[in-house]
């Protein structure tokens, strides 16, 4: 039996039992954060990794979803309607973003998404009569699916875990589906794909929509987690942070964004308790990743691992390219 299913089973069991062996609400909350940021990073990875389109505007989509949810919840609609409205708002915003930014690729795509992100942030920040500016909007309650309260950290963690597992499964299926393979084709050889009869623009558009859906889902989890939304969430820095999760973990791999999310969230919320200069540490980690393993942590360590196996002289048949789809 290859080591991969065993490793997956071990990780799954560890995640499923996490509230039992990780004591303290604080750490369970950190785990929830890692999971919903991982969903966000998985969404961005569809574009940045598999489509070769780097977006610096995803925090705006995340934010639009969050604001939509906060509004509808505040207006007195129930949570199911609020969640639905938020997801629809996120998807509509993504469609607009995609139509505008898919006119370009490469740096052009980065710049258009950045401009869109800044416009949305500017509105959230300055249009105080609508968004309440820096004071933000509160969401007072969490939903109660089937009568279970999501207020305790462990309950929220399990909800996030379920959504996370579904998201990972969806992304895995997408990447292995004909559409996913075609998407990677448009990343590597857009002109050849076009000549082969694929509609490059449409493939990219649907990839954007899937990315937007995952972003919106993580946005919903985020609002219910913090129960608050303010323009800070939409800043360019937030977009950059998620992009850093994707790139540092390994763009275009399934595992990469999850590892990247864990890295950034742990440095931000746990290590920052011990080291005052954690921002500097995070920056140094990114620079080190670029120098040591430019392809990201997951493919990079897989490469180093294979190299080590070969050095020892053992057959590397059992070691597959971890993280590769």
């Amino acid at each position, binding site marked *: 039996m290859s080591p991969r299913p065993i490793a997956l089973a071990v990780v799954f069991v560890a995640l499923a039992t996490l509230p039992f062996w990780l004591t303290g609400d604080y750490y369970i909350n950190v785990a929830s954060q890692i999971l919903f940021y991982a969903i966000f990073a998985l969404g961005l990875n569809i574009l940045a990794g598999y489509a070769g389109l780097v977006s610096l505007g995803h925090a705006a989509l995340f934010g639009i979803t969050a604001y939509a949810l906060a509004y509808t919840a505040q207006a007195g609609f129930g949570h199911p309607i609020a969640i639905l409205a938020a997801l629809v708002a996120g998807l509509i915003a993504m469609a607009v973003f995609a139509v505008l930014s898919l006119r370009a690729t490469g*740096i052009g795509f*980065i710049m258009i998404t950045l401009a869109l992100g800044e416009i949305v942030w500017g*509105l959230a920040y300055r249009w105080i009569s609508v968004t309440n500016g820096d004071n933000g909007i509160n969401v007072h309650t969490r939903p109660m699916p089937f009568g279970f309260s999501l207020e305790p950290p462990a309950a929220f963690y399990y909800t996030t875990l379920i959504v996370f597992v579904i998201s990972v499964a969806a992304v895995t299926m997408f990447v292995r589906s004909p559409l996913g393979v075609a998407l990677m084709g448009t990343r590597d050889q857009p002109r050849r794909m076009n000549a082969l009869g694929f509609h490059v623009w449409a493939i990219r558009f649907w990839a954007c929509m899937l990315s937007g859906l995952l972003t919106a889902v993580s946005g919903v989890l985020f609002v219910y987690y913090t129960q608050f939304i303010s323009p800070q969430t939409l800043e360019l820095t937030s977009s*950059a942070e998620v992009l850093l999760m994707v*790139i540092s973990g390994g763009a275009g791999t399934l595992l990469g964004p999850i590892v990247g999310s864990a890295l950034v969230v742990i440095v931000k919320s746990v290590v920052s308790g011990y080291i005052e200069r954690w*921002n500097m540490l995070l920056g140094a980690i990114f620079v080190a990743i*670029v120098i040591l393993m430019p392809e990201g942590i997951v493919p990079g360590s897989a490469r180093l691992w294979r190299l080590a196996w070969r050095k020892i002289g053992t057959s590397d048949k059992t070691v597959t390219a971890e993280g590769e789809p």
Partner: protein
Amino acid sequence: MNFWLLLTVNSITFGSLLFLVSAGFSLIFGLMRIPNLTHGSLFMLGAYFGATFVGGMLGLTFNFWVAALLAAAMVAACGAALERLLLRQLPGQQLAQVLVTLGISFIVADFCLMVWGGDPISVASPEALTGFVRAGPFVFPNYRLAVIVIAIVVAIGLWLLLDRTRLGAMIRAGVDDPDMARVVGIRVSQLFTIVFALGAGIAAFAGVIGAPILTVYPGIDQYMLPLALVVVILGGSGSLLGSVVGSLVIGFIYNFGQALLPELAYFVLFLPMLLVLIFRPQGLFGRFIP
């Protein structure tokens, strides 16, 4: 009437500052094709260095202009090192360039916070320029007018450098067609270092010049970077004329937007950038589509 005139002068002053920040950014973007997300950090680093030199350090206080040039030289050296040691290793790898420039900007921001603390530092404008100019019923602060003059001098200097010297011709060749420039024997990678250092130096100089107007505070890097980006996208990367026109347009939009449409100020600021990207991706005066 006075209100409009003052707003106009402020717009031109802010546009002049933006020109100083974005001229280097535009050259770096145009020649090296990299999104240099450290540019705001270089501006901030220059501003903090300048504030330290003017405010006194180890018992020495520097003249404002000496401080500005010294800060520019120091940051230019940092920029050259950054290009040589890091960016040089990553030609054409956009994701890695984004990661490394953002990483450096995190480090610089935290470094500044560690050394200079979180409180804003105000810098006195040079004594010779503290007064006002009276023209009939209107009053203009001397320093703001001086900033405009400085920007014009730098613009002319850059134009002479790019248009009248051998180095400038090589840079222009590199912007237009890096591969062909290499074929005819121009060492484009050496130009990269020079242009990066030059761009970093001008940004730092702008940081010191802007300090008496903006004050220096943590977060000014993230304030300046998007503005410089808007200017460069609007004007077209690698074009000096584009930087001049772009900065003036954005200077006006920013100041008039803040005064007339405070709620939509950022919306009207970034909208032109979006329209240009969609309808004229090379920018108003750009030579190539990034």
